[in-house]
């Protein structure tokens, strides 16, 4: 899509430093600390120094948005879309997504 290499292990919490994404390590550290229910004060300040003011707000917006859609997906039992199912087999296997309980909603997994 962009021609850049991204280490998918970062999605599962590994290979932070080598994610291949600019400020990826700091983005992941902030996201993980926050999602554990901690204030993430130090991680937030570090990111605010690295990102533009607009980009930091957009980071908060992405975190908010996916906390919405994850709940909708899990609570309505929607299956993965057929096109996405066909395109994502390798990524799903690499990330072992079938370990998540909600994979049961997509019957061909």
């Amino acid at each position, binding site marked *: 899509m962009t021609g850049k290499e991204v280490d998918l292990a970062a999605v599962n919490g590994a290979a932070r430093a080598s994610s291949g994404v600019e400020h990826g390590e700091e983005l992941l550290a902030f996201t993980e600390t926050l999602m554990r229910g901690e204030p993430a004060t130090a991680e937030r300040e570090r990111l605010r120094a690295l990102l533009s003011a607009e980009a930091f707000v957009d980071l908060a917006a992405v975190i908010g*948005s996916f906390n919405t859609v994850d709940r909708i997906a899990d609570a309505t039992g929607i299956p993965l879309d057929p096109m996405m199912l066909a395109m994502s087999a390798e990524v799903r296997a690499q990330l072992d997504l079938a370990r998540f309980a909600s994979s049961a909603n997509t019957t061909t997994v």
Partner: protein
Amino acid sequence: MADPGYGPYAVRDEIRAAQAALWRHIAEPGTWWAGAQRVAIARAARDADGCGFCAERKQALSPGAMRGEHAGDASLPANVIEVIHRVRTDPARLSRAWFDAVKANGLEAGPYVEIIGLVAMLSGVDWFARSLGLELPLLPEPRPGAPSRYTPASARDHGAWVPLIAPEDAGGSEADLYPAGAIVPNIIRALSLVPSEVRVLHQMAAAHYLDLDRLPDPTAHRALDRMQMELVAARVSALNQCFY
């Protein structure tokens, strides 16, 4: 939303408008729940964050085996409180068996979907505020009026737990529900048994993430670049253990 105060942050007008629209939406009579009930649903979602039973159950190997009482507002039926608290605190382990039990206990699919929309979108605003290190915005005052009790005739079984409207069936009152010609993923169809929830979700998703018609374009992005956006989105979903 009365000015919630975004502290030192320059929050885009599009996000401010979407969150204000959600606050009005929560306060107004819905399809199955009155305004006071919808605000009570939102309050119960906030209560779930401090619910001891939810915390204990989240640590349990099998959430279905746990018995206990939820903390907080008791003005809603116990079955409704159970749905709100589970969706707020432990959505990853919801199952078809759990949903069937909720229905067997008297909560029909329409009112259920409306609760899911409210709790999920409120949770998004709350995580936005937490990310910025801000207090959660005060909930709105309910507005008077009766729920419409509208059921779209075109909602059908498409393999989810709840009936959905497929884009090809979205005519009449639902003709505006999906962008013409766009690929509409299941996540956008998921709440379509209650079309008003989909309309607000569109505005929220477009403001906080991307417009549906820009999603397939890998160059579409915000002030964050697209790879940063997708890395954070994927990590949030992995931490939430969401397969979709």
